[in-house]
């Protein structure tokens, strides 16, 4: 439609995309070290893809992340969370137990610390990102 008229927006978005996505991934990965976590980081990653779909075209965004894969990864994020809980049951503790079942906790402040906390946040991040993206795709596809 009006693709040629928004050249500045397209150039800026193309430049900003990797930074936004790396920032989102950083917030997901370092959720146990500072402010942030799966919910906030997943939203930032999804916002970058929505920005891409708004600036370029929904079809090009759907080429990058197909709607089917988004819904599948969204369910896998939930299954990942529950598997982390079942690990606690298999090792003889409570559902979603972390320290009491002997998961190595590491030194507080390092990236590999916290036992199951970053593992759970990874699944939550994937789930939140894919939820928001597939919600956006579902809403946009109605108009076509």
């Amino acid at each position: 439609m009006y693709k040629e008229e928004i050249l500045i927006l397209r150039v800026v978005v193309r430049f900003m995309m990797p930074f936004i996505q790396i920032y989102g991934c950083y917030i997901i990965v370092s959720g146990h070290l500072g402010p942030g976590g799966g919910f906030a980081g997943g939203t930032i990653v999804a916002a970058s893809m929505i920005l891409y779909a708004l600036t370029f075209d929904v079809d090009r965004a759907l080429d990058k992340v197909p709607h089917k894969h988004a819904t599948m990864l969204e369910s896998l994020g939930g299954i990942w969370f529950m598997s982390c809980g079942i690990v606690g049951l298999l090792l003889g503790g409570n559902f979603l137990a972390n320290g009491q079942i002997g998961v190595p906790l590491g030194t507080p402040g390092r990236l590999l610390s916290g036992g199951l906390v970053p593992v759970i946040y990874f699944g939550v991040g994937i789930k939140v990102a894919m939820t928001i993206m597939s919600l956006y795709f579902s809403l946009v596809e109605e108009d076509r």
Partner: protein
Amino acid sequence: MRIILILAMSISLGAVLLLVVSEMPEYGCPDSPVRNEVAMRYIEKGVEETGAQNLVSAILTDYRAFDTLGEVTVLFVAIVAAIAVLGCYSLGRTCPVDEEGD
């Protein structure tokens, strides 16, 4: 008449709420009931027991992880509902409403 009734109800509700708020303990007051042994346990032993430096994350995904699982389920149900309503347009299917014509 209706306006008077609405005004009376709003004012009485607001007065009750203000009374309740005025009885609340001050922010950061050491005698407040939320400063019980649960919060002190999180602050004193949270880092040691979970290994996570961020106490909010430690509570969210360790002490109260079952609650977070509920939040994730809410997200899942939300997207299932959205796809159930709008999904006939996506994934390459034709909507039964569109097939009927008009």
